[in-house]
């Protein structure tokens, strides 16, 4: 009986989490250009418009470019940082770790305003490069945390063994550390990409009027005229997130990545 109660409770919460998304899916396949639920008719034209309507295509390309560049930069910053912290530790290591996760932990508005005044001072306010770099710094936390977790799983004796057999640190990294930590690097990169795609406030305050991203475009449509394209873009976002996190879970141990130590199939 208690099991059924528990299942009912979890099920009810999941329905709560899914219901707004289901309505958005319904709205996205409307035939008329209005937000109706249940939908009137069935049409995929609003998905097509993401790729044919100039405004939406432009936003899509901006978002994609920002996410890929920012994700790559974030990993490029996080990987050496995580290696250093793992090797040396100590006060400096802890301080650098804190510096790496701070931009992500602070209220987003605070980071966004910091980036905004910085880019105004540097003369790059309104430039898409500014958004890319800001997102990279904002998202360093994700690969930093996943890679650090990955490095913790590497048996130090393995590294010691390679060293005693004459491998220099470059060889150790290439043949042992990196192959073992690669899944964690990829999941950190994936997390960063998804979060960058969804990020609104930093992109808006750094270059909201010149480099319009999809979330900015959706918010503008929310204010100045609804269109079912918003719904189709939102569905695209949900599907991207599910696909990426699903892949991370498929290739890795998601419960462990999220901090559960005792999750081995009970």
């Amino acid at each position, binding site marked *: 009986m208690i099991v059924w109660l528990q299942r009912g409770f979890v099920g009810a919460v999941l329905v709560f*989490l899914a219901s*707004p998304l289901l309505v958005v899916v319904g709205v996205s396949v409307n035939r008329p250009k209005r937000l109706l639920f249940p939908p009137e008719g069935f049409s995929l034209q609003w998905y097509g418009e993401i790729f044919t309507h100039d405004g939406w295509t432009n936003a899509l390309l901006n978002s994609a470019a920002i996410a890929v560049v920012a994700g790559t930069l974030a990993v490029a910053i996080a990987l050496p940082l995580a*290696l250093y912290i793992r090797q040396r530790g100590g006060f400096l290591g802890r301080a650098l770790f804190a*510096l790496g996760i701070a931009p992500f932990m602070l209220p*987003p508005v605070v980071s966004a305003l*910091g980036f905004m005044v910085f880019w105004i001072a540097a003369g790059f306010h309104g430039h898409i490069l500014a958004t890319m*770099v800001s997102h990279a710094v904002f998202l360093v936390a994700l690969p930093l945390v996943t890679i650090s977790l990955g490095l913790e799983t590497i048996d130090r004796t393995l590294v010691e063994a390679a060293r005693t057999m004459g491998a220099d640190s470059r060889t150790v990294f290439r043949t042992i550390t990196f192959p073992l930590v690669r899944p964690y690097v990829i999941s950190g990169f994936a997390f960063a990409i998804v979060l960058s795609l969804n990020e609104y406030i930093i992109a808006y305050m750094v270059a909201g009027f010149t480099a319009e991203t999809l979330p900015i475009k*959706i918010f503008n449509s929310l204010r100045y005229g609804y269109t079912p394209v918003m719904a189709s873009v939102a569905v695209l976002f949900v599907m991207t997130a599910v696909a990426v996190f699903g892949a991370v879970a498929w290739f890795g141990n998601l419960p462990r990545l*999220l901090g559960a130590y005792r999750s081995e199939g009970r």
Partner: protein
Amino acid sequence: MTRRRSDNSWHLVLLPAATLTVFFVIPFTIMLAVSFFQRIEGGFFEPAFVLSNYVRFLTPFFGKILATSVGLSATAATIVVAVAFPFAYVLSRMPRRRQTTILVFILSVLSLSEVIVGFAWSTLLSRTAGIGNLFHWVGIAESPRAYTPGLASLLLGLAYLAFPYAVLVIYPAVSRLDPELPEAARTSGASPLRAFTSVTLPIMRRTIAGALILVFVFTLGAYLLPQVLGRPRHWTLPVHITDQAIFQSNIPFAAAMAMFLLLVSLALVGLVLVVDSRRRGDQS
């Protein structure tokens, strides 16, 4: 265990550390400085050292914003943790496969932009596409109506936004909880509910308090839902920060409010971290 000094660890870390300093520490320094600057009408700001941006904290205008922000976030955090704790507890006791599936879904919802959450809820609560239709169809309501904007819809949106975050904050602690403790209570004759309330909850007291604070800080940062799902009187501190920075062109005042939000958040998160490390110390 010996730690070898590796030959290249310094130049390894120099570039990342420099990047973070240039693009994160310096922006914050500039923001701190700007919060003392003088605003110029119609322009940006000029260097000065004035306290007027902070003195505005004492006005009823700011007091109202603060009360709104704190009230909304505290209510949302309480509701969210009250639901998320039992949820995470049940989740952590499921077979691993199902756990993973649910976690993928939770992560996906967590990653959703506030814009999309706001849009989804404003659609769900709208007149033409919302549950109003359903109520009308079932016969609860006479005609479909919109349930947004308003306080209830805003709280619902905030709870939705923060719920996945709360689950992920609580999940590690409950999944490491020794399952034998509640089982011992059960074999001693306690009902499952009683075992949960008299054994599990007290052990998890600090986890729950920590989660409450973290979720509070998280919802305190919400900048978009109050605009989409609430009315202007529900605008919170982050909404006003963006409004002052972009539409009122008063960056110094926005910077002062951001510094305030930053310090409050840091203090609260710091408190959780200190309590957490003390607890770790107790256990080992």
